[in-house]
């Protein structure tokens, strides 16, 4: 286990070293910002939205950014290039062509989204709407990092169970066991009933995936700070998984309740179906919004508090800001676990209603 962690650290170190070398080549913002100078007004909402949105580069420290692969699909085919290309062009061409990458189309990053532009740098909305961006963005990298962490942690825990069969848990294993048991005994069992075992892998994966990504999002510096679980796309996928699992496992009673409500007069049935259908959709929809809103809100509050320092242009406000940020971060740490818990709990609850045996 120790050697595994050491290897991981070494990989990180190599990665960081490589990053450091690539930094000088990619600092397109510097010239622009220096040119505009201090006269540029500080726009907190802009900064905040930029921080909580996805990005095509990894922000490391200061102006140092790590370019990420851009993968684009248009009807002309799949294209793959480094996001650094958007910057390289800046030096070689005139000002209006700055940041344009010439592939199958002319691509440009407009507020960190790939758009198709004409030679003059104006966005072609019609063509851009047919552009599908499968880039490895900051959020994807962050997610992969969390997956690597999850795999290292739980494969080592799993091997500990194999190695120490029948013995008391130890180390990381003893830290994780109560959490796993919590998911089993307080989330799965009471809500799903005796069929809980089939859904344990999903519930555990969802729980730990959300939790670790919530926490990675709270780390204010590289490689943390991404707003993965506060991104609607991620919560959408998670809630669609819940939707599918719940409805694919729905038993006879569940569907009977939806389509053939026995006690209800027949003429109300069509209305009943509509309501039930809305219910089926709205439950995971609420899951999606809840996670997204909670995590995004936390990020916005922390970033707003930090922005106060720049809005007031005063160091005097810094201690106040920092104090509030520390408070918020602690609160967010709770929210991170709480939202993972709620998402998993509600998923278990919905599964429970779908697989419940009725006795009336």
């Amino acid at each position, binding site marked *: 286990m120790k050697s595994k962690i050491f290897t991981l650290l070494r990989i990180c170190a190599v990665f960081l070293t490589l990053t450091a070398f690539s930094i000088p080549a990619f600092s397109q913002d510097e010239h622009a910002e220096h040119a505009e100078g201090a006269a540029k007004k500080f726009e907190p909402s802009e900064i905040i*939205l930029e921080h*909580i*949105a*996805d990005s095509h580069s990894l922000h490391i420290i200061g102006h140092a950014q790590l370019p990420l692969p851009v*993968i684009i699909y248009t009807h002309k085919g799949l294209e793959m290039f480094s996001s650094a290309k958007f910057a390289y062009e800046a030096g070689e061409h005139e000002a209006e062509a700055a940041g344009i990458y010439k592939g199958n189309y002319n691509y440009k990053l407009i*507020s960190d*989204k790939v758009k198709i532009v004409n030679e003059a740098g104006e966005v072609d909305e019609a063509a851009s709407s047919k552009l*599908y*961006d*499968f*880039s*490895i*963005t900051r*959020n*994807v990298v962050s*997610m*992969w990092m969390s*997956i690597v962490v*999850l*795999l290292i942690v*739980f*494969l080592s*825990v*799993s091997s500990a*169970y*194999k190695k120490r*069969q*029948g013995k008391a848990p130890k180390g990381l294993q003893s830290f994780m*066991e109560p959490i*796993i*048991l919590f998911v*089993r005994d307080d989330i799965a069992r009471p809500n799903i009933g005796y069929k809980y*075992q089939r859904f*344990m*892998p*999903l519930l*555990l*994966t969802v729980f730990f*995936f959300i939790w670790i990504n919530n926490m990675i999002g709270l780390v204010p510096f590289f490689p943390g700070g991404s707003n993965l679980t506060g*991104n*609607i*796309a*991620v919560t*959408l*996928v*998670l809630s669609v*998984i819940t939707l599918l699992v719940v409805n694919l496992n729905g038993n006879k009673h569940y569907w009977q309740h939806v389509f053939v409500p026995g006690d209800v007069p027949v003429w109300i049935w069509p209305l009943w179906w509509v309501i039930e259908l809305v219910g089926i959709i709205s439950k995971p929809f609420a899951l999606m919004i809840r996670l*997204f809103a909670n995590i*995004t809100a936390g990020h916005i509050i922390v970033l707003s508090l930090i922005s106060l320092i720049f809005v007031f242009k005063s160091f005097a406000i810094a201690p106040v800001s920092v104090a509030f940020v520390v408070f918020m971060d602690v609160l967010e740490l709770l929210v991170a676990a709480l939202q993972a818990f709620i998402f998993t709990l509600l998923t278990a609850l919905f599964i429970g209603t779908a697989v419940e045996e009725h006795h009336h």
Partner: protein
Amino acid sequence: MNPLVTPEIGLVFWTTVSFAVLFFLLAKFAWKPIMGALDDRERFIEDALSKAEAAKEEMSRLTNENEALLKQARIERDTILQEAKKVKDQIIADAKDAAHKEGARQIELARIDIHNQKTIAMADVKNQVAALSIEIAEKVLRKQFEDQGKQDALVAELLKEVKL
């Protein structure tokens, strides 16, 4: 629409793929063995607890049995002791009785013996006395009848007494 609430197709795609891979790997290599191990351990603990309970019951049963046995043994011991005491008393009584009888018999024998011895001795003494008396009488008579005249006088006297 606000970009915040517009899901990006790229992130949807990568999240789906990544989550599927993560789920598959964790389910197969982490959750299955971990849940299995936890269930096994729980079953083992439950088993051990029920076994302990059974052992406790067995133990109390054995203790009860032992106590009963002990009680019985004690009663038996008491009866044996009592019997032994009885036997002892009997033996002592018998012995005493026998000794008594034997003593009486011995005394009786001794008495008879003594009596016999006494009789014998008395007879002996009588004989001795008779012999001595006869001897003395002989001697006296001899002394008295040394003188012829006296003998004649006596005979004369005796003859006088005889009345024919």
